[in-house]
């Protein structure tokens, strides 16, 4: 076993997960066995997978042919640096989430729990296989395995009609995307019938066919990643799924789409055109802004996080577009910078979004409420969950010294370096794009203030919240792992960038110039910009301590507990606090054009007035409803053929017969 390559380990772990999935099915009567043994074992596999991914980053690419599948069509597997970074992401995030799940799922009944364990491990195995696949056949099989297992995970509570509907929508869009991917691979093989990625790398496509392949890939992977307007399934599926599943889907599964897009564009295609990048930037920014605006007006906490995932995917996609532009323009160093930034952001998002989703899971578990209007003040009753979630909130809001800041800062650096481009219009337009990225990042911070403030701060909005219990130990451990990831990725960016260097070397044959050292990050050059997170962190800690002890010395020492934010008004109660709807109201006013707002305003004489506001996406009405109507209309027209009278049916056959006789003569 000592001379086993990382690839051997990787598919070994995939097999191990498949075995665990089978074991899950066998444990239909032993719920304790599933949560007490299977999930921890699965988590160990995830940890090993993270190590394999890191090893794959450092070592040269390995190939392997798995003799399964159709005759003459074995599975080709390959582990290179690009797969390595995403496997590391998968393993590290899945470890935290699975450990969390070992505690979270304890309250489930044995039967559904066994099925959940089956689909959960199949899902992990499917995602890993997507990253390992080295031919189109294996890729599509893994892709479908991932889509189907996650569909069953989303519909875990399939007795609820809304959840079934959300699951169906997800399945539908996943398959529309899969069809586009199938066509994309069809274009990539260039009419020679060889579907291994090795062959596709060597196939020379004309710019027209390369563009066709790129657009199909953008559509197919965009459907999985939640690109506007293919995002509609995301805000429905994430609230429907159990929280650890949402965490995996948002944190890891969306990244497989990013992986696929990078694989196709930079590895399989041998030309890259600048206009692809412009298109990707435009779509990415649209997605980012659309996502963050809708996140700001949500009042369901998981739906809010789902929209925030859409925003992050948009930012990653904008970074991808910029990479393509730089690379097509021959600016390899800058392309390496943006690629690093977007990979970094993908990893970061896996950690903080995973953390936030499992955090909301704990809240949901102990209060049974997803609607933020019925939460509040939970920091006093669930301190572990609240403080660990705070780390995620600060990270996603992009505050230094946490990880969200690093990747967004790198990306903005890249955007600000565009004046070197040879294309004039791009030079002028991209600073505007940089402003849009900054706007999205700022609004994301606003969204997170709302999320954290309404759920954890203030006074409890319902009486039963006072009895909310904190998360158990496995949950705390899982959240702590993810939070530690957020902190460490934020504190040691130079190390992480060193790890990412093989990927940029693989895809762009160039690495990012880091002028700093392990303490200080200085992309491009130290004179231009540098960032030393550890120093920053120490200064923040030092100032906090000085202020804390200074105040303690001066202050008389008696601590008084009062309702927060009462501004000296003693009659303040929980109902007078700012609500989720109220916090998002300015955004809703400004962007009301894009929304369909449903409001229930209370009667003035109502003793227990309730206000409910719901802002829905107009894309559904504008893009999907017409298609659905058209299909319904067409089928109604086709339904006219059905007369019920046998004479008419005979006339149809007769006319067809005459027609064929006349025309095939």
């Amino acid at each position: 076993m000592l001379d086993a390559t990382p690839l051997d380990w990787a598919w070994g772990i995939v097999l191990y997960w498949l075995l665990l999935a089978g074991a899950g099915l066998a444990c239909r009567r032993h719920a304790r066995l599933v949560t007490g043994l299977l999930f921890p074992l699965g988590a160990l596999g995830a940890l090993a997978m993270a190590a394999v991914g890191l090893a794959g980053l450092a070592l040269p690419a390995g190939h392997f042919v798995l003799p399964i599948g159709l005759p003459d069509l074995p599975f080709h597997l390959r582990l290179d640096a690009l797969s390595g970074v995403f496997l590391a992401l998968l393993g590290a995030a899945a470890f935290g989430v699975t450990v969390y799940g070992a505690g979270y799922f304890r309250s489930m009944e044995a039967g559904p729990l066994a099925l959940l364990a089956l689909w959960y491990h199949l899902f992990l195995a499917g995602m890993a296989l997507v990253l390992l696949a080295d031919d189109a056949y294996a890729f599509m099989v893994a892709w479908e395995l991932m889509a189907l297992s996650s569909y069953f995970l989303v519909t875990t509570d399939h007795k609820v009609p809304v959840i079934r509907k959300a699951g169906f929508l997800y399945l539908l869009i996943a398959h529309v995307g899969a069809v586009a991917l199938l066509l994309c691979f069809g274009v990539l093989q260039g009419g020679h019938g060889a579907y291994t990625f090795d062959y596709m790398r060597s196939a020379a496509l004309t710019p027209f066919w390369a563009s066709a392949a790129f657009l199909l890939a953008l559509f197919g992977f965009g459907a999985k990643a939640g690109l506007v307007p293919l995002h509609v399934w995301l805000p429905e599926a994430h609230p429907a799924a159990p929280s650890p599943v949402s965490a995996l889907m948002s944190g890891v599964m969306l990244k497989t789409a990013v992986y696929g897009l990078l694989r196709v564009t930079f590895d399989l295609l041998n030309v890259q055109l600048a206009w692809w990048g412009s298109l990707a930037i435009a779509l990415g920014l649209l997605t980012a802004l659309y996502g963050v605006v809708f996140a700001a007006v949500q009042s369901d906490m998981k739906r809010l996080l789902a929209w925030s995932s859409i925003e992050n995917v948009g930012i990653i996609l904008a970074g991808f577009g910029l990479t393509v532009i730089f690379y097509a323009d021959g600016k390899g160093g800058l392309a390496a910078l943006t690629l690093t930034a977007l990979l970094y952001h993908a990893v970061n998002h896996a950690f903080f979004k995973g953390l936030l989703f499992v955090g909301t899971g704990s809240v949901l578990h102990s209060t049974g409420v997803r609607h933020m209007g019925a939460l509040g003040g939970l920091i006093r009753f669930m301190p572990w969950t609240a403080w660990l979630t705070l780390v995620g909130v600060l990270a996603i809001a992009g505050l230094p010294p946490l990880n969200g800041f690093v990747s967004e800062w790198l990306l903005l650096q890249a955007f600000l370096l565009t004046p070197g481009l040879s294309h004039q219009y791009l030079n002028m337009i991209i600073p505007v794009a940089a402003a849009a990225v900054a706007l999205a990042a700022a609004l994301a911070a606003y969204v997170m203030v709302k999320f954290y403030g309404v759920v954890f701060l203030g006074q409890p909005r319902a009486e039963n919240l006072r009895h909310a219990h904190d998360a158990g130990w496995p949950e705390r451990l899982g959240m702590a792992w993810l939070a530690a990831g957020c902190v460490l990725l934020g504190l040691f960016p130079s190390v992480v960038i060193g790890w990412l260097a093989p990927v940029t070397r693989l895809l762009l044959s160039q690495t990012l110039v880091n002028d700093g050292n392990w303490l200080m990050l200085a992309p491009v050059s130290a004179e231009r910009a540098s960032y030393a997170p550890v120093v920053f962190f120490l200064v923040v800690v030092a100032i906090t301590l000085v202020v804390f002890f200074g105040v303690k010395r001066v202050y008389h020492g008696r601590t008084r507990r009062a309702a927060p934010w009462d501004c000296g008004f003693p009659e303040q109660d929980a109902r007078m606090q700012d609500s989720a709807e109220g916090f998002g109201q300015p955004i809703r006013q400004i962007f009301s054009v894009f929304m369909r707002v449903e409001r229930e305003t209370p009667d003035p004489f109502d003793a227990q007035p309730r206000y409910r506001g719901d802002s829905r996406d107009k894309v559904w009405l504008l893009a999907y409803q017409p298609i659905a109507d058209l299909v319904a209309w067409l089928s109604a027209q086709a339904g006219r053929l059905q007369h019920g009278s046998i004479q008419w049916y005979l006339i149809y056959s007769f006319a067809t017969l005459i027609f064929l006789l006349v025309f095939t003569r």
Partner: protein
Amino acid sequence: MNLSFHLQVINLLAALLLLISFAMLSQRRVVGLVTLFAWQGAALAASTALVAWSTGQHHLYWSAALTLALKVVAMPWFFYRLVRKLDINREVEAVLNIPTTMLIGIALVIFAFNLALPISQMAGTVTRSTLGIAMACVLLAFLMMITRRKAITQVIGFLAMENGLFFAATSASYGMPLVVEMGVALDVLVGVFVLGIFFFQIRETFDSLDLKHMERLKER
């Protein structure tokens, strides 16, 4: 007897077939229709036997015997019984009036002859000139199915169509292999019995064998 005399007789029988097809198209009573169907079968059997004798294709004797047994004896007997049992020997309502149907039929015959011209030039059989008639029989039977309302006339139309196809096979290539013909014959026999059972079921459900009652079955 020389070949041309055989050919003349075969052509005569073919003409009879066509004539019977037109007669079926204009027949208003079910019993009359069954009788015509039996005569059509007889003409078919006779012409097949004649082709077999004149060309030495011995398997065609079997086909002729099969046709005689099934289409001249068994099925007409079955239909007479059915008509008596179900008491449906009333006038057959036609969707179109008979003269119009006949005119359409004439147009179809012209079309069939026109269609068969290039094919019969390619075929190497002595009977190739009757191919047009065979196709016309198929189309006329189809037309009869379209223009009639009663379930039993549909079945007879279907069988008449099968007669036409059989005749086409005989005239274009001296028939299909015997195994295929026996298979088809068995299919037809089973189909007729199944349909006979269906007639009873339909009548029990709708109190009538008129197909317009079945229009209610369509999806709304």
